[in-house]
């Protein structure tokens, strides 16, 4: 039996769940299909950074839109998602890096974006007292912060289900096709049909896009993270580096999360990753250099989540360039968590109204027309 609904969303990450929730709010009935469970991969195990800072200009309007939702997220999903706004700070380790920061902020200001603010060494040390004396300054985005990723994705999932979304977890979406003007997707023994299909399948989205004739240069990555046992409170904002791969954040319970984009080896078909301890060692070295207080902390766990990275490091977001009723929302390239709430809202506008006030043109799949897909697509 074929069950017809308003929209089919493939992928139960923060993006699929957010789009499901916002479609429900707009009065539609979506079905969300997740092969594992909501938040199983990158959305549930990322660093939780809620960051407008240091984004590609093409993403900034979506990021700003999202930030507004984050600040009142409890109203949307009945859970504060562990969101805390202590700002995010980008640290310049050299004068040359600080010059680059200065140029970047000036450029953003010229384009009308004011969320990034250049800071000198004094302000840097006021915000991050434990940072090494040698750092000359950086950039702060004061409204930024961090949230708990699994809790957040779960909250979006739960609220979407409460508002009427149909959830299918633990069964993969297969045989995606268009018949008689409707998208059809098999889910185990069931078949769903809908005029709208949202491809939010993360690391698995490239395959769906390719099957539907829109191959894109995307690869599967697994950014590694590690967390320490609790240490005495010493830092509020999230810290990222300008020149080296590091992000750094202390939770209210004292544990410190260390990330920054070093990659594990993903095994997408096994849902597994093999960690690269030599690269994690580099992260540990960077932390030890910048924050002396961290040297005696112990690492209690390291992991990596599987996700999709585009060749140009910005997502594919918006309507298909080929098919009516098909929408893409994937390839967030290791920085999609903060965008989730806003992207769902904008996606719902695109689906319901056919347009949005939020500038997303630079993220269209159009940009890859006539390019060769990468080997892992």
């Amino acid at each position: 039996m074929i069950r017809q609904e308003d929209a089919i969303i493939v992928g139960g990450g923060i993006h699929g769940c957010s789009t499901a929730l916002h479609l429900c709010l707009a009065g539609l009935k979506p079905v969300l299909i997740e092969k594992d469970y909501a938040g199983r991969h990158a959305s549930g195990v990322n660093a939780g950074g809620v960051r407008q800072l240091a984004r590609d200009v093409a993403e900034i309007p979506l990021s700003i839109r999202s930030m507004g939702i984050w600040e009142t997220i409890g109203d949307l999903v009945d859970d504060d998602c562990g969101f805390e706004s202590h700002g995010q700070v980008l640290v310049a380790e050299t004068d040359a890096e600080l010059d680059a920061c200065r140029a970047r902020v000036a450029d953003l200001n010229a384009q009308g974006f004011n969320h990034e603010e250049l800071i000198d060494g004094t302000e840097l040390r006021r915000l991050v007292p434990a940072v090494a004396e040698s750092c000359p300054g950086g950039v702060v985005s004061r409204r930024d912060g961090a949230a708990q990723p699994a809790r957040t994705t779960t909250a979006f999932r739960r609220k979407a289900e409460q508002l009427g979304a149909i959830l299918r977890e633990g069964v993969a979406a297969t045989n995606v096709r268009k018949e008689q003007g409707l998208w059809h997707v098999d889910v185990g023994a069931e078949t769903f049909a809908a005029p709208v299909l949202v491809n939010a399948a993360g690391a698995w989205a490239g395959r769906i896009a390719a099957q539907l004739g829109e191959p894109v240069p995307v690869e599967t990555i697994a950014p590694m993270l590690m967390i320490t046992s609790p240490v005495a409170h010493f830092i509020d904002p999230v810290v990222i580096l300008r020149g080296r791969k590091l992000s750094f954040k202390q939770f209210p319970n004292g544990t410190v999360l260390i990330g920054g984009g070093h990659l594990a080896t993903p095994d997408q078909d096994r849902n597994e990753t093999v960690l690269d301890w030599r690269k994690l060692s580099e992260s540990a070295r960077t932390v030890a250099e910048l924050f002396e207080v961290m040297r005696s902390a112990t690492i209690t766990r390291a992991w990596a989540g599987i996700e999709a990275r585009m060749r140009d490091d910005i997502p594919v977001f918006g309507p298909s360039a080929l098919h009516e009723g098909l929408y893409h929302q994937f390839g967030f390239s290791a920085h999609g968590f903060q965008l989730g709430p806003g992207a769902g809202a904008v996606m719902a506008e695109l689906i319901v109204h056919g347009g949005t006030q939020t500038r997303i043109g630079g993220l269209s799949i159009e940009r890859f027309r006539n390019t060769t897909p990468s080997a892992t697509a």
Partner: protein
Amino acid sequence: MSAAPKHDRYDVVVIGAGPAGLAATTMTADAGLSTLLLDENAGPGGQVWRAISSTPVKSEVLLGADYWSGAEIAKAARDSGAEIIHRATVWSLDRNLEIGVSVGGGSAFIKAKRVIIATGAQERPFPIPGWTLPGVMTAGAAQTMLKSSGLVPDCPTVLAGQGPLLWLLAAQILRLGGRIDRVLDTTPRANYIAALPHALAFLTSPYFGKGLAMMREVRAKVRVISGVTELAAAGDGKLESVTYVAGGKRETLPAELLLLHQGVVPNVNLAMAAGVEHRWNELQLCWTPVLDAFGNSSIPGIAIAGDGAGIGGAQAAVVRGRRAAGDAIKELRPQAEIIDLSAEMARAERGRAFLDVLFQPAKQFRMPQGDTIVCRCEEITAKDVLDSVAIGATGPNQLKAYRRTGMGPCQGRLCGLTVTELMAEARGKSPQEIGYYRLRAPVKPIMLSELASLPKDDEATKAVVRG
């Protein structure tokens, strides 16, 4: 003994120097395979033969003949030519058979052609009201102190629980002049009937005579209460009393020390973190790895021997260690002749089914209720777990998002089984369907500074960090 590994590659790396690990090491080294034995303790023996080469308790009678049988096996390993490193913490193992090991404050990575995990067992969590109070310990912890330092309790002491180790510990404490005020036996009465079909095998096994003699020895000196159906520890900041119900009668005893034990379960953390497939064992009520007859796991090159392969006791562990070693030798030295150990294996496992059924812990001692703490690291109660299930947590990994269970320093060792069983019951599913925490390296915490001081490039990494 605490120098870093001499090489970066070995034919065989054995992890854990208990009965299985010592037996495996001796065999592969004797067969000419380059063998490295890594062990966390200060000396060989694992838990069952802990401190076999250093214990201050020298009298053979006090610790028993089974304990001293370990000395010979430990000596054979020492003489085998294998490289043996104690105080070595293996904190990572992956499907490429790469091992991260910490020795003397420095870490190294080594590669093996075969890995034999012999990390043994741990005590099953015993989550009763008040089990986190100072003064409440596991029987295993008490036995560790007894074996390594000759320490025994001298304050008002209650032993509670079930299983062979409980009786062995009671006997050892009493022989060393320690104090036990009461033994509370929680073996469910129904288990005696359920175990009957396996009784014949048990009666003809070596366990029977020893077990009976030990229980008689303890009963002669201490009051033993059987059929205990409820148990709680209480006190203000430390243990002051133990309350129990037996035969419908409730009694409260003053106590300063409560030693808890309800059997042992495989220590799965390293194997699971490496990706070895495990399944729920309905008889032993724990996770056991999926293995072939030689202990080979779902990951090519990784075998598991000893109690980590499913609880079988020290004798079975020795045979399992030899079988895993034999298979490694066959693989790496195809011309070598390997003795068939299946008859020996059957003998060593005789009587096990009886013990498994008889000492299956009662539900109320595995699945606590209400305010009883389940996860000690994050102080999460049974009620918290059930509340999370009610609002959508479907399994242990989802529960992490709600309650952070399993994410503390113990990595689920003290809450994992309880969480799986509680969630399975609440959701009307089997523990197998509910699953377990996905475990991650480092399997034991390592210092950030130690990780930071790993040599930078690949070549340098192979040369080992020293001190």
